[in-house]
C-alpha cells in the first residue's frame, strides 16, 4: 500500500514535467502542424547545456536555466526559420525526416563535444528528501511538479488572454483570416516554435537532478512526449497535463512493481489500452 502511494505521488510529480514536455509539442503542432521528432533531443541538449554551465562555472542547473532558456529560444527560432520553415507545408514525411535529421545532428553533436559516457550535473537539492506520512518526496520532484504546473498555467493564461496568445490561437484555427487581420503568420510560427523549445530548456533542468545523462537519451524523451501528446488529444492543455500524469504514474508503478523490462513497457501498454478505447484522447473536445 505504501509502495503504491509512493508510486502514485512520484508518478504524479514526474508526470507533470512530462506534461510540460508535451505542451511544448502541442503548441508547435497546433500552430505549424509539425510534429517535432527532435523534441527529446532538445531536452537532451538543454540538459547538456546545464552540464556545461556546471563544469565551467559550477552553476546549479536551477540557476543556469537563466542562460539556457534564452539560448534554446534563440536556437529554436533559428532551427525553425532556416530548416523547418523552408519545407513546412510540404509533405508530412519530409518534415518528419527533417526533424529526425535534426535529432541525429544534436545527438552526434553532443557525442562529439561531451563524449558518449553517461555523466551527471548535480544539483543542490538533489539529495533533499521530505517525509509526508510514509511517503518519501524528493525535493527535485516537488520542484518539477510546482514549476511545471505554474508554467502550464502561465502558458494557458498567455494563450487565453493576451494579444499574442490570441494571435497564436487565430493562426491555429484559421491562418488565412489571421493574416488578413494583420497577424504575421510566419512570425507567430517562429515564435511558438521558439517558445516550445524554450520550455524544453526549463523541463530539462527540472528532470535533470539525479538523472544520469547521455547523448542518445533524446529518443526516450521524444517517445514519452509523443505518448502524452497523443493521449492528451494533441492540443488540449488540460488533457495533455493529465496525459503526462497518467504516463508518469504508469512509469512509476511499472518500475516499482514489475521486472525491469516489463515495468518500462507499462506506459506503452497503458497508452495502447487507452487509445483502443478512446482514440480521441482523454478529453472529448480539443
Amino acid at each position, binding site marked *: 500500500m505504501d509502495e503504491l502511494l509512493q508510486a502514485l505521488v512520484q508518478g504524479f510529480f514526474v508526470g507533470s514535467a512530462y506534461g510540460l514536455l508535451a505542451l511544448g509539442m502541442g503548441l508547435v503542432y497546433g500552430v505549424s502542424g509539425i510534429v517535432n521528432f527532435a523534441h527529446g533531443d532538445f531536452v537532451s541538449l538543454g540538459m547538456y547545456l546545464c552540464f556545461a554551465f556546471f563544469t565551467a562555472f559550477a552553476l546549479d542547473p536551477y540557476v543556469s536555466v537563466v542562460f539556457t532558456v534564452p539560448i534554446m529560444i534563440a536556437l529554436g527560432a533559428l532551427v525553425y526559420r532556416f530548416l523547418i520553415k523552408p519545407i513546412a507545408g510540404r509533405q508530412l514525411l519530409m518534415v518528419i525526416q527533417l526533424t529526425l535529421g535534426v535529432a541525429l545532428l544534436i545527438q552526434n553533436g553532443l557525442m562529439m563535444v561531451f563524449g558518449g559516457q553517461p555523466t551527471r550535473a548535480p544539483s543542490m537539492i538533489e539529495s533533499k528528501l521530505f517525509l509526508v506520512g510514509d511517503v518519501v518526496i524528493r525535493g527535485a520532484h516537488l520542484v518539477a511538479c510546482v514549476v511545471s504546473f505554474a508554467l502550464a498555467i502561465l502558458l494557458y493564461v498567455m494563450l487565453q488572454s493576451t*494579444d499574442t496568445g*490570441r494571435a497564436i490561437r487565430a493562426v491555429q484555427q484559421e491562418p488565412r483570416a489571421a493574416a488578413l*487581420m*494583420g*497577424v*504575421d503568420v510566419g512570425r507567430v510560427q517562429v515564435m511558438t516554435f521558439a517558445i516550445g523549445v524554450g520550455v524544453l530548456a526549463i523541463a530539462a533542468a527540472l528532470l535533470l537532478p539525479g538523472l544520469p545523462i547521455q547523448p542518445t537519451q533524446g529518443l526516450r524523451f521524444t517517445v514519452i512526449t509523443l505518448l502524452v501528446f497523443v493521449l492528451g488529444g494533441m492540443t488540449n492543455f488540460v488533457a495533455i497535463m493529465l496525459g503526462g500524469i497518467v504516463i508518469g504514474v504508469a512509469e512509476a508503478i511499472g518500475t516499482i512493481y514489475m521486472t525491469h523490462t516489463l515495468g518500462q513497457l507499462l506506459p506503452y501498454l497503458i497508452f495502447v489500452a487507452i487509445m483502443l478505447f478512446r482514440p480521441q484522447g482523454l478529453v472529448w473536445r480539443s
Partner: protein
Amino acid sequence: MLEMQGVTAGYDGVPVLRDVSVNVARGELVGLLGANNAGKSTLINVVSGTVPIMSGRLMFEGEDISKTSAQDRVELGLVQVPEGRLVFPQMSVRENLLLGGYNRKARPARAGNMDHVISLFPRLGERLGQLAGTLSGGEQQMVAIGRGMMAGARVLMLDEPSLGLSPLFVQFIFEIIDKLHAEGMTILLVEQNLSLTVRHADRCYVLERGVVAVEGASAAVAEDPRTRAAYLGM
C-alpha cells in the same frame, strides 16, 4: 483613394487578372461583379497583399503600396472580410472581435470600435461569450464584418457577404452595408448578386475572365447588355 492601375496578377506565374484598372473614391460604395472564377476574390487579395502583383501598380492615398506587406496594409486601413467568413471557430465572438483589433493602429481604439460594432449588430452583443463556430451563417457574417471594422477599416472590402445566407439575412447585411456607407465608410463590395448590388452601389465593375468587361454608374452597368453577356460567359 484606392487605385489599381493596369494590374496583372495570378498564381504561380499564371495570370488570373490581366491589365485590370479599378478605382474607389473616398466614401464611395463600389460593386465588383462577375461570374464564378472571374477573378473577384483574386482582385481583393491583390489589394490585401496576399496575391502578388506581376505588373501594374496599386496606389492608396497617392502612395504606391504594391510592395507593402499584407500586415502593413491592414494598418493602413485596407481590410478584407473574406469569402466564406473564416471566423475563428474556437474563439468567442468577443475574442474574434478583439483579434480584429490586433494591429497596432487599431488597438487603442478597440473599446470604441467594439461599441460601434455592437450598436450595428445588437445580436452579437447578446452573444459575446458564444463560440463563433456555433453561430449561424448569418451571425458568422456579422462577426466577420465586425472583425473587419475592429481592424480600423478605412476601405472595407467585402467578399460575397451574402453567400449562402437566407433572404432575410441578405436583406439585413445589405442594410448594414448601406448604414456603413452612410457613415462615410469606403466600401468595395464583391458580389455575384447583380440586381441587389446595382441597387446599393454607387458604381460597379464587371469582371469577366480576369478583365474588366463593363464599368460605370450602377444603373448604366445594370442596363448594359455586356453585363449579362459577362455573366453568361459569352
